[in-house]
């Protein structure tokens, strides 16, 4: 029981509440909407925040330590390991957010969410396979890192765009398309700038998406808004 909640009672025997002030009713609806949104609502904003931070922090040691005149000396293996840890932390947070968003519900949305979650796991298992094979090939660690990372980010972009299609969420689709564009630019420019472009580009993009999530969804309406507009 939430200590802030007032006891909820109906004064009338027939269950109607004639004394319930309309302005109070509006406040109750807004309060409940906020509570639902916070506990169980759309997890996108938190997902963007988690991944924005994971990319910004994860790519930073690579960006700082690569190139002819690195800002800090960090062995490539360590820098890649830090990146891997940040991604692992991001995955754990994303799983928690995903499970929380559908906890205690069943139906179309939770089935979609579950299948969408599986699509990330299955496709990233292939990236793990690619990573193992490139590691075995004896390729230069930075080049190997670039190949695995470029493939991963292309997949991230594709899955974000797919999410936009599944939930008719134009903002998510646009963010996925921007990730694809940033990755393409980084791949065309190549090393060592690749790491800076991904750090500030992909990390910055997702942090901005988290920061401006609400206005973004207003500008780019999605399925939920279309539903609200229906009679």
């Amino acid at each position: 029981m939430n200590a802030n909640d007032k006891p909820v009672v109906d004064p009338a025997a027939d269950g109607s509440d004639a004394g319930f002030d309309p302005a109070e009713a509006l406040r109750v609806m807004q309060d409940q909407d906020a509570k639902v949104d916070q506990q169980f609502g759309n997890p996108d904003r938190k997902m963007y925040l988690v991944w924005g931070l994971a990319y910004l922090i994860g790519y930073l040691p690579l960006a700082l330590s690569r190139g002819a005149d690195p800002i800090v000396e960090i062995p490539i293996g360590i820098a890649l390991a830090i990146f891997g840890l940040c991604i692992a932390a991001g995955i754990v947070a994303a799983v928690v957010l995903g499970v929380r968003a559908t906890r205690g519900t069943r139906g179309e949305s939770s089935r979609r969410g579950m299948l969408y979650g599986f699509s990330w796991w299955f496709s990233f298992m292939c990236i793990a396979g690619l990573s193992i094979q490139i590691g075995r090939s004896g390729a230069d660690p930075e080049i190997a890192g670039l190949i695995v990372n470029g493939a991963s980010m292309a997949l991230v972009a594709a899955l974000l765009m797919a999410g936009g299609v599944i939930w008719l969420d134009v903002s998510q689709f646009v963010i996925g398309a921007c990730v694809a564009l940033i990755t393409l630019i980084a791949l065309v420019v190549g090393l060592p700038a690749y790491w800076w472009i991904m750090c500030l580009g992909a990390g910055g993009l997702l942090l901005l998406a988290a920061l401006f999530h609400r206005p973004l969804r207003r500008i780019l309406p999605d399925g939920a808004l279309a539903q609200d507009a229906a009679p």
Partner: protein
Amino acid sequence: MTDALPLDPVIHAEARLRVMTTLAALGPKDQMSFPRLQELLGMTAGNLSTHNRKLEEAGYITVTKTIEGRSPATYLALTDTGRAAFGTYRKALAALLGG
């Protein structure tokens, strides 16, 4: 004055308004478990059941009882009628408040 309000009396009570608002946040083909709804509303099980019965009698929500594993589970969802009634209520409330 309140008698003249075009507000649906089934919805216009704090507890049921909270139930309707919470269930309206779900997708049209989604259901919420009774304990999850109870948690989001901060109501006792008995109080929530009483209000759910009124909403069910009005045809605004469906209450589905099922078995999950070995335990009984109850799921609730808005009906199309309930979703439409809630939409009408929101519009009536906005109009009443000069929105």
